[in-house]
């Protein structure tokens, strides 16, 4: 089971985050101050850290993060902040953060992003094809086939599908899609993404077949092999 460390000073927020992560099937530890968080994080054994930007105890989130990175701890870190200003975000990522989330946030957003962060990174050999069920994507020629049948996709649809397939079985939220496929970020993207997803759905699911892209209640999608 994946282990996550939550460093958050507000007890109630911490309890809610821990609760949501435990419900998501993670093993969770928490720390309430910067020094405590640093000690636990440095001790290792975590697959990801959820780190509040503002912390008491003389060591704030970014300080903790820089220290961790300086001593060579490469565990993925997701920064939480009450500020969504772009430079805040840039500063967070520059300090070694892997992702950034602004409060208040949906817990679905948090768990979805954590799942992506904790995805085993390895596979250094360049992939040339993705395959989920009978859906195949050739990463070199950008051709898509389902059950051998060629599917014609627009470039953006192709990238949407590629992203969903790379995260097979994981929930990805609209915000994540918007960020990864369109390269713009805002925390409350419109439902227009749904239109893109349903268009993609219509193209990849042949008449009568089970839909591969499922809508997750709230604001996300998940792509699974159709059974």
């Amino acid at each position, binding site marked *: 089971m994946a282990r996550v460390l939550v460093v958050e000073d507000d007890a109630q927020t911490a309890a809610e985050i821990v609760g949501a992560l435990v419900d998501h099937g993670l093993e969770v530890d928490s720390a309430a101050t910067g020094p405590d968080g640093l000690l636990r994080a440095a001790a290792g054994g975590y697959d990801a850290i959820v780190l509040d930007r503002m912390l008491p105890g003389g060591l704030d989130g970014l300080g903790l993060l820089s220290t961790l990175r300086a001593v060579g701890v490469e565990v993925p870190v997701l920064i939480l902040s009450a500020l969504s200003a772009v430079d805040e975000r840039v500063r967070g990522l520059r300090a070694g953060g892997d992702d950034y989330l602004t409060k208040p946030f949906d817990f679905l957003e948090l768990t979805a992003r954590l799942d992506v962060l904790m995805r085993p990174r390895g596979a250094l050999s360049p992939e040339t094809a993705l395959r989920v069920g009978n859906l195949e994507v050739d990463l070199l020629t950008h051709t898509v086939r389902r059950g051998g049948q060629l599917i014609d996709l627009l470039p953006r649809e192709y990238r949407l599908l590629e992203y969903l397939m790379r995260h097979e079985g994981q929930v990805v939220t609209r915000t994540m899609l918007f960020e990864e496929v369109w390269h713009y970020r805002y925390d409350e993207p419109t439902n*227009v993404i749904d239109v893109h997803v349903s268009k993609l759905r219509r193209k990849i699911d042949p008449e009568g077949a089970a839909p591969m892209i499922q809508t997750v209640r709230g604001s996300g999608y998940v792509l699974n092999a159709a059974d």
Partner: protein
Amino acid sequence: MRLIDLPRTTSFRLALLFVVLFGLSSLTLFGFLYWRMEGFLVSRVDDWLIRERIDFLREEPARLPLRLDNRARNAASDERIIALFDAGGQRIAGNSVAFPQQIPVFDKPFEFVLPKEDGKDRFRGLVHRLPSGSQILIAQNLEEIQEFDQVLVNALIWGGAITVVLGLAGAAGVGAGAIRRIDAVTLAIERIVQGDLSSRLPTRGTSDDVDRLVRVVNGMLDEIERLMQEVKGTCDNIAHDLRTPLTRLLGGLERARRRAATVDEYAAAVDEGIEETRGLLKTFTALLRISEVEDSVRRAGFVPVNLVEIAKDVVEFYEPYADEQNVTLTFRADIDAAQPISGDPSLLFEAIGNLVDNAIKFTPGAGRVTVRVFHHDRTLGVAIEDTGPGIADAERDAVLRRFYRAEKSRSAPGHGLGLSLVAAVARLHRMELIIEDGRPGTTFKLQSDTQSG
């Protein structure tokens, strides 16, 4: 205004200071004049004395007494006296005067006093000793010079008095004017403090220094009034707009408490509650975002961006949605519109996206929405033109207010914060958000002056 306040006013003090300075400079000038005048008169007397002395030296000593007596007899006045005395100081001839008691130096002019019937006379003269031992006194009465002095001093006193009176009156007048003005401004400020935000400070229309200050303050008051109204409007609207979902939420929960019997029914009620709460959270997030965007610190995150690229991305993003709504979405850009500007790409995308979203939403089927990036007359911007029903003139300003929803669009989905966000993004980028009548439909323009960057 109270008289006691007068000496405290800056203008009064300034006027007073000028009176004093003017007085001092006049006094200096007058003193100098007096000194030079006196010197001039005395030197004239001395010239005469020396001329006469030389004249008498040329005279035969024996004829001197006769000539002096003749002169004394024929003279119209005893203004100028010449008399001969023996070595002991006894008068021999000439004007009948006493010999001065002390003579500092012979042949040099000096001043002395001689008694006369009603007091004494001041004289300036010189004494010359003749070879015979007798002495000749030549002198001029200084009364005339003294009279002249008197006139000069009187003129000084009167002139000074008039200057002081006029100066004080002027200072009082200026000070009173200033007090009246400050009183008027104070009164206006007190009215404003008491809550009459529509009141403004009075101006004279003379563009003087106070007027300039007053105008700046009035501008500030305009802005404050606008903000206050916006805050009030926002509060009213928040309260109004949040009451509906909160009431629904409460109603749903109460209904579940009352009626739900099975776990499924409870679950359904909870799901409904979650959905409502999510909507509420969304509204709050939107509100927070607007105030955050309005915080200009965010400019620190600006990078060079290209409006054409962003607008193209927006159009591409909204194309499927427009298709679905049966609206034709087209994109055009002026050839020289692809200029880099400084901005936040995500915010610009969101702002243009919001405008496109609105345009599509409010354009009926088979309508057209055009996104055009233009650059002409030093103005760079994006225009979003639709063929929808248009916005009534009266509503054009109102649509920019938070939570405002035009009458025709009450039923459409959305929280009424979209255009406020667009306006905030525009302000952040020093752009203007303009709403124009598109005849038919509406044109929204986001534009900035390329000169000012």
